[in-house]
């Protein structure tokens, strides 16, 4: 209760302060009028590649809609946002934007008319993108067919519908500036860091989001629940979760670009990222990202699961084992080793044992297909079991795979399963 009061106080205070500051510093429209569109084919091609690396299409395209015409709902804890039309239509898209307008938007999160963008647009990451790359993306977007489709207004609750409030958010969570290469690291590492921290905007999901919709730099890549999607984006820094320290660079690159690897497989929101974006990366760029991700130093590891927490009733384990033998063994094998990369291993797979059991429970309930990619166009799939297994069954079998074969996870409860069963898969 006290926490809530403090949050409310901060919000109201922030709103007043922000409104005052806003009247003074409100950025206007840029004055430059030169709009030069004479990019070469090479630049446009590079822009297309970079736009894919940035996964612009995923948010700026409504389901079944025209690419980049906007309209996709982005549910947030603060209400629905609707992605904008970024086709070069003069009236409803970005047809009137100059390259300078576009760069300012990427760099500072300020729209052409001077209004502040909501941070669902990952400008906190895109700020690291170089001017040259922004210009290429701009050239590419100018080259796609213009679509006349008005932007749908956002549906945010008060006070989040007040853009002035974003001044406060920006002060807390936004650091402007292009990526600065680390001279102590290799060119490959720096390229990977540039892609992961910039266009890849990985931290949008893989860093916990706090009450104000911000991410803390000190917790970067430590993992977090993805708001409103009910998937857990594992930590990329801890070896106990998705932590990549003991993975081979090849497996990391495969996971990103192919969607499957010998260590794990992507499903859910990450399948979408691979499908729309990462599968199009060159091998060099996928490897560079992998090299950088592997190097993310393991932070202070979360405390290991204690033996008390791991305590599992023998009857539950036996029930889980029976279900495993009946339903799972065919694909994942007696020892949980799977048949990678077709069927992922469950033994020593950190996404099975991580503290938050959301992902393994969801996989058992809803099944899933990895994305069909250029290097894996015909993926193997897992069927849903929600209509075959009860909450007790699912809890038992997930508990079993979390503790069998030397896995060091904690048991899950039927109540945890029931919570996720009530949600529709996304």
């Amino acid at each position, binding site marked *: 209760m006290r926490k809530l009061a403090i949050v409310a106080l901060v919000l109201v205070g922030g709103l007043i302060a922000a409104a005052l500051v806003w009247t003074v510093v409100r950025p206007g429209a840029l004055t430059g009028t030169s709009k030069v569109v004479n990019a070469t084919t090479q630049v446009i091609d590079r822009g297309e590649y970079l736009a894919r690396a940035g996964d612009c299409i995923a948010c700026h395209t409504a389901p079944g809609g025209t690419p980049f015409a906007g309209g996709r709902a982005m549910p947030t804890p603060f209400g629905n946002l609707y992605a904008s039309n970024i086709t070069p239509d003069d009236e409803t898209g970005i047809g009137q934007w100059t390259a300078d307008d576009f760069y300012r938007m990427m760099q500072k999160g300020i729209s052409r008319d001077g209004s502040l963008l909501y941070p669902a647009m990952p400008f906190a990451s895109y700020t690291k993108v170089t001017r040259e790359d922004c210009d290429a993306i701009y050239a590419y977007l100018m080259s796609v067919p213009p679509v006349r489709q008005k932007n749908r207004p956002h549906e945010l609750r008060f006070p989040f519908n007040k853009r002035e409030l974003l001044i406060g958010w920006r002060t807390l969570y936004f650091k402007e500036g292009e990526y600065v290469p680390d001279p102590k690291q290799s060119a490959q590492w720096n390229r990977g860091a540039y892609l992961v921290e910039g266009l890849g905007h990985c931290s949008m999901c893989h860093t916990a989001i706090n009450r104000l919709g911000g991410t803390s730099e000190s917790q970067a890549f430590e993992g977090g629940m993805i708001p409103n999607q009910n998937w857990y984006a594992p930590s990329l820094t801890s070896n106990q979760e998705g932590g990549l320290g003991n993975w081979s660079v090849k497996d990391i690159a495969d996971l990103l670009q192919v969607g499957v690897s010998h260590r794990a497989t992507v499903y859910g929101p990450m399948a979408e990222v691979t499908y729309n974006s990462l599968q199009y990366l060159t091998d060099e760029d996928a490897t560079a990202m992998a090299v950088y991700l592997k190097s993310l130093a393991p932070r202070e590891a979360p405390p290991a699961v204690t033996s008390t927490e791991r305590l599992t009733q023998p009857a539950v384990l036996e029930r889980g084992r029976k279900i495993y033998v009946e339903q799972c063994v065919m694909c994942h094998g007696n020892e949980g080793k799977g048949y990678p990369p077709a069927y992922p291993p469950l033994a020593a797979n950190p996404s099975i044992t991580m503290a938050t059991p959301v992902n393994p429970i969801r996989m058992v309930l809803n099944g*899933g297909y990895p994305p069909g990619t250029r290097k894996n166009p015909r993926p193997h799939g897992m069927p849903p079991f929600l209509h075959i297994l009860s909450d007790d069954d699912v809890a038992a079998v997930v508990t079993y795979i979390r503790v069998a074969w030397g896995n060091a996870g904690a048991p899950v409860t039927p109540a945890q399963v029931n919570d996720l069963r009530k949600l529709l898969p996304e």
Partner: protein
Amino acid sequence: MARAAKNPLNLLGYAMGAVVSGVWLLTATQALAQDAAIPAFKTLDSMEARVQGCTTCHGQSGQGTGNDYFPRIAGKPAGYLYNQLVAFRDGKRRYTPMNYLVAYLPDAYLREIAEHYAKQRPAFMLHETVPADSASLQRGQALAQTGDPKKGIPACVSCHGANLTGMEPGIPGLVGLRPNYVAAQLVRWRVGERVAADPDCMKRIATRLTDADVTALAAWLARQKPPADAAPEKSNLVRMPLACGSQR
């Protein structure tokens, strides 16, 4: 009735009363379905192994499972199955578990999955039948075999094949489907929840059906004995009474 009497399960059911019959049959189909729903394949690099994601609902060979909703997909024309997979992927046909499963699968692979199931010829499963009075069954039979010209409803058989096994390339078979599924699809079509390629002939038909018609059709179709040859008819053997976008 003569048809029902040939089936010992139905005969037993009629003797014991409709309710008991329902329970008995459900148990029998569940026992059968158990096998169909457990992952099984011979080699890893095969379509059987790749489509394990479909098995707990549609069975190992697309014959369906004990669940009283999920449809048989085996032997339906590949064009029809492909259209459905694409519609599920793009959100044009809505059923969340399906939308989720195929969300990130490319056209070529969906085509391959469709062709895989179109080739399957597993035995038909025993189905539960829903209780229906003889007037309702008569109405169902009439709609299926002769239609209702006064209301502008063509016979099911004029497009779905003389044996109701469907027609290449885009019209599904109606035999071996569960009454719940058939009724749900017709209602979805009527309210605009399910659509097909323009011109959407099924929408024209579904909007002319009453609730009683839907129930009658679902009940009558579920009672039909599957034909020995489950293959869909070749296209253009007959002139279709309505233009259908999915046949183009």
